[in-house]
């Protein structure tokens, strides 16, 4: 099931980047978790918690170089128009909110009801799982040649009853 969630996470994220921010992304070849600090500085990390048929959080870390274009595109800013740090963080929080909102029904089906919290910007160390969290899926993308990573953590995994019939999951997939 991990592979399936990785695939969904990657597809949904690519789609939302394109539709919401007009930015194109591609799966990162040889992706390995751990986005490191670059010349642009440490990654910017945002998280959003959710509760429902399964509960957990989605964490996204990306290069700070992406933020000006992300916010500018979402706001429809002109080329000579700069965005404020607050607008950039707000754009990132809206991005993860839309990704999470589109991701969960893809995993659990459209009958599932989830409550999604308000996204927050967190310390880069916050990408690691908490003691009660299980990694359900992860993906690494290159967005406009900059790194972007997402991890989906669950508290206690995903119960088999949550998965829709066409999910392709079998008993061996259980966490």
């Amino acid at each position: 099931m991990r592979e399936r969630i990785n695939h969904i996470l990657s597809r949904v994220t690519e789609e939302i980047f394109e539709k919401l921010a007009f930015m194109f992304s591609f799966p990162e070849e040889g992706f390995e978790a751990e986005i490191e600090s670059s010349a642009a500085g440490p990654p910017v990390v945002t998280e959003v918690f959710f509760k429902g048929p399964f509960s957990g959080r989605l964490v996204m870390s990306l290069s700070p170089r992406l933020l000006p274009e992300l916010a500018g595109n979402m706001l429809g800013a002109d080329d000579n128009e700069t965005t404020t740090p607050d607008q950039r963080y707000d754009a990132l929080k809206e991005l993860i909110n839309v990704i999470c909102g589109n991701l969960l029904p893809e995993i659990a089906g459209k009958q599932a009801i989830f409550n999604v919290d308000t996204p927050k910007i967190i310390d880069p160390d916050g990408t690691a799982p908490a003691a009660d969290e299980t990694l359900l899926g992860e993906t690494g993308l290159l967005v406009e040649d900059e790194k972007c990573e997402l991890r989906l953590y669950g508290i206690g995994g995903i119960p088999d009853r949550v998965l829709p019939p066409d999910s392709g999951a079998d008993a061996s997939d259980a966490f």
Partner: protein
Amino acid sequence: MEINVLVVDDSSVMRAMISKTMGLSGLSLGKIYQAANGQEGLDVLSGHWIDLIIADINMPVMNGEEMIDRIRANPELKDISIIIISTEGSDARIDRLRRKGAAFIHKPFTPETIRDTVKDMMKLGDSDEGTD
């Protein structure tokens, strides 16, 4: 007919996106007001004439569904057109909002989707589109 619009969303970026999209929609617009949650939205409604509300669901202080319930319970406000723009993916929740008389647009959205939904909901023809 000029439409006064109230955009209710806790994300300032989403409020700006919706406002900009409305501006590009070709519809004849009056004023566009903004509020960061349902309670702020009700405060705006108490002091201004609004023809159309575009709101999110998940917001702090007062969510979009509670705001709709308060509006529908108020004789002076109950007939205002309401469009929900949200990432909500649950069919049950979307059906519940529709039964309360709200149209639903899924995020991410296109400007055309907003324009067509507004025209459909407010029964506007091409003659109601702005000229600029």
